[in-house]
């Protein structure tokens, strides 16, 4: 959902362009990279590996 939020920020900034001048700061680029890294982390985590640690009753 965070990538959707990032696009939302971009659209909001474009819409504000008429009222105010907006200079993107370092954080917005960091946020973009964070999304990429997080997507990679989500893709490589195998939930079954975590569930295997939980004992099965019966």
């Amino acid at each position, binding site marked *: 959902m965070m990538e*959707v*939020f990032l696009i*939302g*920020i971009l659209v*909001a900034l*474009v*819409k*504000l362009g008429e*009222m105010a001048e907006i200079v993107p700061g370092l954080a917005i680029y960091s946020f973009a990279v964070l999304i990429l890294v997080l997507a990679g982390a989500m893709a490589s985590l195998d939930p*079954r590996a975590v569930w295997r640690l939980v004992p099965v009753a019966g």
Partner: protein
Amino acid sequence: VSAAAVTARSLSMATCHDCGLLVRLVPAAHARVACPRCRAAIHSRKQDSLRRSWALVLAAAVLYVPANVFPIMTTTYLGSSESDTILSGILYLFKYDWPLAVLVFVASVLVPVVKLFVLAYLLLSVQSGSRKRRVDRTKLYRITETIGRWSMVDIYVVTILVALVRLGELASIRAEPGAIFFGAVVVLTIFAAESFDPRLIWDRAAERGPQEPDGESQ
């Protein structure tokens, strides 16, 4: 080595929806089967899948109308105020940044409509027991499931703008009822896709097989 198609259901087995554990279903009528690992209820198919999806799809279709008719936000800038619906917001965006406008158009206008039609088609085809193009229909389901959240873009835009622009008379942005209807449409279609069980595409017609204690009812 070759693979032979076998369903868990035909072997009286089921995977837990929550933790993915494969369990053997022991015939004990009407008992609530709990996953031995995570204690979630075990169902061989999503419960009441068709009924729930239909209800959510229809509710979303009804709310789609006010979502597009009512304004989603009102911009007050230097004393003059202007209300935007989803469509007029996109038209406005076209003047400044057309690739972004195309993206928002796809996410906010096309995706919800396409999703509603695709889900209705999938539900109808499952109910009629169609055996045609089952691989394609499964892929279609996967796609609708993935693209749904992109419709949230407009909700995020309104949220960010409302929070950022609070300069009183000089400039301020207010959220309008359309945003709530639109958000409801997006959430309902996400739930509708979630409650549809793609395995039904393969179940029906193929095997009117072993009855299950807690699954689909027609």
